[in-house]
């Protein structure tokens, strides 16, 4: 199913198709998740949550017979922990402190109000049901028009309106581009709200060990070090007293890289209890109280010359960020990313944008695979197709014409992003070949006009900034600028390796890929490398796993540590073999010289058990390295997806007939894992495109908070993918790697939206809103036919 694998230089190093080591324990059911942790005296937590979207809390009544320490309200917690406040340096940004438990007002259904603790979760739910909360409902702010209305109710009373922040930019001369253009199109696009839905929900255990004076927090989190530091700050204690452990995780996709009220509340309460407490998110809580995503609206105008040259783009972007800003990303995260990504992989030089991040009575938005890009990609790529249609061009030719060319790299986009490397047009050309463009066009033309089905072909292209450093986060206003990663590598007395990294592999196979980095340097099988991650007591400080950064950043750090340790190992071997360091190579578990060789096991034993045998070499057989890339603008992955759909004209149903991906994530560390990331990402992108939608009523009630109503893609919705790879090494990273975790999820709405629109061109219907449900597609078709009918009559 793939093309273009390269041959790795090392058997188990960079490029090796090594099976995921993690799979053995997970397939055998031997993983250990938060729910599996066994601690003496552990009691379970249920949260009392708001069932009202917007309202004033008038009373929280605790049952008289509740055991001491079994119920906690905002009043109890006020003395123990500060609310979480995400700040931003963006001009005019309005902070919205996120309460650990709601005190005076509730702002979304699912907002935590009180904590109930009992021996089992069922008993905790019994107790929670006996805590009564009186709420006077207020009018809810739900959609964009509610939020922006002149006399809208306010989510945050002290704000003048419901806008977290407005950003804008005007580069080049869009007005001149408009005057010069042969064609201009204006379109509106909506990408509706989604849940993130990892297989495993969130979960937290907190335990204060009085003898060690240490608070231990187990959390299913992508960012254990960040959680540790923020818990310490909010609890007003030194971080040395806090240890955060992220055990095995069943996915996260961004929903577990913000600090949550549940983490702070459990940590604060545990400090007052003599027993550990655990909360495990249930699926309803996951659908209403984990961070949600997308909820974008775009008004895009694009101008093109008669030959298809893209002259200018204007975008007015709205993002509904929900009730609060999550830490550290803030509610502006999606909008600022979307504005930067609207120009896409194109050479456009005139660009004007405005973004408004809007507050509403919905769960806070947070990162989700792709962050902002799926919406931006949908908006610009649909617009590219509309321009191509107006100009009578094949949409993929429009892309080829306008994409940044390889000889222009590095290329600074009109939005100021530095595209580092790659051949963007080649991905389009290869995708067209892989999907069999001409064959499908022939089949499409062969569909009889009286058929109740149509075929459509669509493309979506995007660049994806990955592993960006401090400079990027600073430009987006973040209070913390992220950009370093640490790794520590030790060789033990038996010649085995332990690599400790602060990132958290929550399903992406870093235990395999980071071991491959060590293998690349030391030429050992990954089985000889233990990768420790996700425990702040055992790993160097880290920022965490998000933004498609772990392979590049933690991989860079691991490589740095491995090279330092390798140098030391060679120096030791130089003494023991009596050969100069420059003559030594690391091969197959051994240091190999011109005359002799020494296995790692013997070397380690000699050096650690009998250091007097190795005179002149300082102690310690380990190295710690912090990686911060010299160029911090990121390594840009890119891809073109091509989709072929069948549209049922009677039901509006869309079926994927074929799907191809041609991507470039630079040097591939493990093709199996990269393909897994692509397939998983595309699956989620298909969910965005066709199925998944968190529907809210006018009163702010979530109407699709179970899998009865919230549809996820499954095996029957995901076709066999055709995947092709380009491998342009990034000049900015170790090995030339580029991140690839998010890429697959970004383009499916664009490619599928363009394919559906292509299928319906003869009727004049367009797919401009996701998910493209049968009802939306059919309604668009009927409305277009209704609109055309009177014209036809007039003509006749």
């Amino acid at each position, binding site marked *: 199913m793939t093309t273009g694998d390269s041959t790795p230089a090392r058997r188990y190093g960079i490029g090796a198709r090594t099976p995921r080591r993690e799979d053995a324990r997970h397939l055998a059911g031997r993983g250990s998740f938060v729910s599996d942790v066994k601690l003496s005296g552990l009691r379970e937590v249920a949260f009392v949550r708001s069932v009202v979207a917007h309202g004033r809390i008038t009373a929280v009544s605790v049952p008289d017979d509740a055991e001491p320490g079994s119920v906690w309200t905002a009043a109890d917690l006020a003395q123990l922990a500060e609310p979480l406040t995400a700040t931003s340096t963006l001009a005019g940004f309005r902070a919205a402190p996120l309460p650990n438990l709601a005190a005076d007002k509730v702002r979304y259904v699912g907002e935590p109000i009180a904590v109930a603790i009992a021996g089992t979760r*069922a008993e905790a*739910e019994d107790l929670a049901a006996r805590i009564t909360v009186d709420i006077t409902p207020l009018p809810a702010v739900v959609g964009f028009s509610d939020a922006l209305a002149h006399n809208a109710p306010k989510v945050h009373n002290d704000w003048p309106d419901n806008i977290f922040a407005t950003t804008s930019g005007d580069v080049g001369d869009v007005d001149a581009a408009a005057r010069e253009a042969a064609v201009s199109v204006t379109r509106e696009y909506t990408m509706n709200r989604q849940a993130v839905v990892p297989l495993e929900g969130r979960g937290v255990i907190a335990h204060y060990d009085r003898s060690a004076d240490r608070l231990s927090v187990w959390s299913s989190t992508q960012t254990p070090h960040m959680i540790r530091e923020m818990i310490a700050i909010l609890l007003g204690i030194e971080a040395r007293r806090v240890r955060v452990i992220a055990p095995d995780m069943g996915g996260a996709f961004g929903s577990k890289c913000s600090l949550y009220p549940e983490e702070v509340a459990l940590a604060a309460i545990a400090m007052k209890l003599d027993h550990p407490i655990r909360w495990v998110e*249930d699926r*309803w809580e996951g659908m209403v109280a984990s961070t949600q995503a997308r909820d974008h609206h775009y008004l895009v105008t694009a101008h093109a010359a008669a030959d298809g040259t893209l002259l200018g783009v204007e975008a007015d972007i709205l993002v509904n960020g929900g009730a609060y800003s999550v830490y550290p990303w803030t509610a502006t995260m999606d909008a600022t990313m979307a504005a930067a990504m609207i120009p896409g992989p194109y050479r456009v030089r005139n660009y004007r944008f405005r973004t408004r991040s809007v507050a509403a009575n919905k769960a806070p938005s947070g990162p989700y695979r792709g962050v902002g890009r799926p919406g931006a990609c949908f908006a610009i790529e649909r617009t590219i197709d509309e321009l191509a249609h107006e100009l009578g061009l094949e949409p993929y030719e429009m892309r080829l014409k306008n994409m940044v060319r390889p000889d222009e790299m590095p290329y600074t986009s009109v939005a100021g992003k530095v595209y580092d490397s790659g051949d963007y047009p080649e991905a389009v050309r290869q995708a067209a070949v892989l999907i069999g463009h001409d064959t499908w066009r022939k089949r499409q033309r062969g569909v009889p006009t009286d058929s109740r089905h149509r075929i459509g072909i669509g493309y979506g292209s995007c660049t994806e900034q990955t592993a960006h450093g401090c400079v990027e986060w600073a430009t987006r206003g973040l209070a913390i600028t992220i950009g370093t990663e640490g790794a520590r590598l030790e060789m033990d007395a038996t010649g085995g390796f332990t690599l400790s990294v602060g990132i958290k592999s929550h399903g992406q196979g870093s235990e395999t890929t980071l071991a491959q980095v060590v293998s690349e340097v030391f030429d050992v099988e990954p089985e000889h490398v233990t990768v420790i991650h996700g425990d702040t007591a055992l790993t160097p400080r880290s920022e965490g796993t998000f933004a498609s950064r772990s392979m590049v950043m933690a991989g860079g750090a691991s490589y740095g540590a491995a090279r330092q340790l390798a140098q030391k190992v060679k120096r030791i071997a130089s003494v023991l073999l009596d050969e100069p360091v420059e003559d030594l190579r690391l091969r197959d578990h051994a240091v190999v010289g011109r005359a002799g060789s020494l296995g790692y096991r013997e070397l380690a034993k000699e050096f650690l058990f009998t250091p007097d045998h190795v005179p002149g070499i300082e102690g310690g057989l380990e190295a710690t390295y912090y990686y911060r890339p010299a160029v911090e603008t990121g390594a840009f992955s890119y891809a073109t997806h091509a989709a072929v759909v069948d549209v049922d004209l*009677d*039901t509006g149903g869309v079926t994927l007939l074929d799907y191809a991906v041609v991507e470039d994530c630079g040097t591939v560390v493990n093709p199996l894992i990269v393909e897994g990331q692509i397939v998983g990402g595309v699956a989620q992108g298909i969910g965005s495109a066709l199925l998944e939608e968190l529907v809210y009523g006018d009163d702010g009630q979530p109407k699709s908070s179970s899998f009865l109503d919230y549809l996820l893609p499954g095996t029957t919705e995901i076709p066999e993918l055709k995947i092709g790879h380009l491998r342009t090494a990034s000049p900015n990273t170790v090995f030339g790697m580029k991140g690839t975790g998010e890429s697959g999820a970004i383009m499916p709405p664009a490619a599928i939206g363009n394919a559906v629109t292509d299928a319906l061109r003869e009727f004049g219907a367009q797919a401009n809103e996701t998910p493209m449900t049968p009802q939306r597609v059919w*309604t668009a078709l009927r409305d277009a036919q209704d609109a055309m009918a009177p014209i036809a009559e007039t003509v006749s």
Partner: protein
Amino acid sequence: MKPAAFDYHRPAGTAEAVRLLSDLGDDAKVIAGGQSLLPIMNMRLAEPAHLVDVTGIAELRQTTVDASGARYGATTTHMRFEYQLVPDVTGGLLSRMAAGIGYQAIRNRGTVGGSLAHSDPSAEWPTVMAALDAAVHVLSVRGMRRVPVRDLLLGFFSTALEPDELIVDVEVGRLPASTRWGVCKTARKPGEFAESLAVALMEHDATPRIRQPRLWLGAAADTPVRLAGTERLVEGHDVDAVTADDLVVPIAADLGADPGAGDPAARYVLHLHAVTVHRALRAVHEEVSDE
């Protein structure tokens, strides 16, 4: 999302089961496959104090067949219909419907009696059993009674069963060789509940003519709906001469809906029912012409 506490009973026979139901009254709930009840209990939308598990009762798993039809034990699972591990007296209709219920894991546990007692109008069994004019035999301490499915289903999650009554089997008449069936289920994806569910039965006369149609529609109202007006409209027409659009107005009339509704969702739903019924009609025709 954990159920409230309940007492669990697992009687070995129907007499013991109905005695328990009688003794426990309104606080008891019969559980068979649990595929609907358990999620509802986990969400605490139902908090029965007692569960009476009838899956240990061998007689509820038995099927008897004679020339007139079959009596399927109430705890016969969807899977057994799907793979025809019980005789299908409807020429494959029961098997076909069962195969569309949920996913395999659900079909392995869910039961025909449980589905009828649950009375979800989007589910397969209520619509097909109503179309076939099946009946349930219901036991209580007062004795056995026979209730036609059309009378059993009173509304969404509501039936004519008394709290202490237990469905013991489902009686389905044998479909005559001259009767053909066609079904269509429209759902967002395989395994989901139907957005529309149509069962068409008609007499076969070796022409594309629609003869004596019986049309039933699920997922359209609180209970399955017989489309009597639509039947009259299509009677005697060639199936190829009927379009889905032709069916919108009569189906709306049968459902008591407004065919000119401006609301896009209502407009779509009505259209989807018309498409689904149309496809069920065509499916009958296609089955016939395949022979």
